[in-house]
């Protein structure tokens, strides 16, 4: 396999991930409840994590991998915080 085919396949993979992110974005905009939006945003960020990983392969630069590490930590905190305020609103 030549490097050109390898690189082209990686570009096609990134485009596929972008289309998937668009599908998830539909649910993020449409979502009837706030839990739908929270789930959709969770999935969207995970798709972005996949995109950054493929980008790290394309550029052969493993430092982009630290971005993935930090991003996976931050998303979790955001989701937990959102659900905390959802439950807090219910008590009042």
């Amino acid at each position: 396999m030549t490097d050109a085919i390898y690189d082209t396949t990686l570009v096609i993979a990134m485009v596929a991930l972008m289309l998937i992110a668009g599908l998830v974005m539909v649910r993020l905009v449409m979502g009837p409840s706030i839990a739908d939006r929270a789930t959709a945003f969770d999935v969207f960020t995970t798709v972005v994590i996949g995109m950054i990983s493929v980008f790290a392969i394309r550029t052969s630069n493993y430092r982009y991998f630290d971005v993935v590490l930090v991003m996976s930590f931050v998303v979790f905190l955001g989701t937990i915080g959102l659900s905390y305020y959802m439950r807090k609103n219910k008590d009042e």
Partner: protein
Amino acid sequence: MTAQYITLICIWIGITFIGIAAIGIIRMPDVYTRMSAVTKAVALGVGFILIGVVFHFNDTTVLIKATVIVVFLIFSLSVSAHVIGLAAYEDRTPLTDKTFRDELKEAEGKQEPPRTVEHPDTKSV
């Protein structure tokens, strides 16, 4: 050269899983089914993509980081789905019409005296 084939195969398996999850988040009728369909498939897909990254770089540091990310993603996606599901239930997000058993409602009903008339707020639409 073999590592490139393994990388591409792992990445495309991962993208297939994430695509199935994206179809699930569009097609499923309910918040709870959406969450159940999505979180596992996405964790599996990103895990496959990270396996592909490890085969590309062939480096110990990348292997350790990828392991940390995969383990943390599996934990965090499960926990956040659980917490959001509980918050959605307490927020009285409606269940789908096809729900035939609501075990949380049954468990809450056992602690209180039996109700003859269903309260309008707790009625699932």
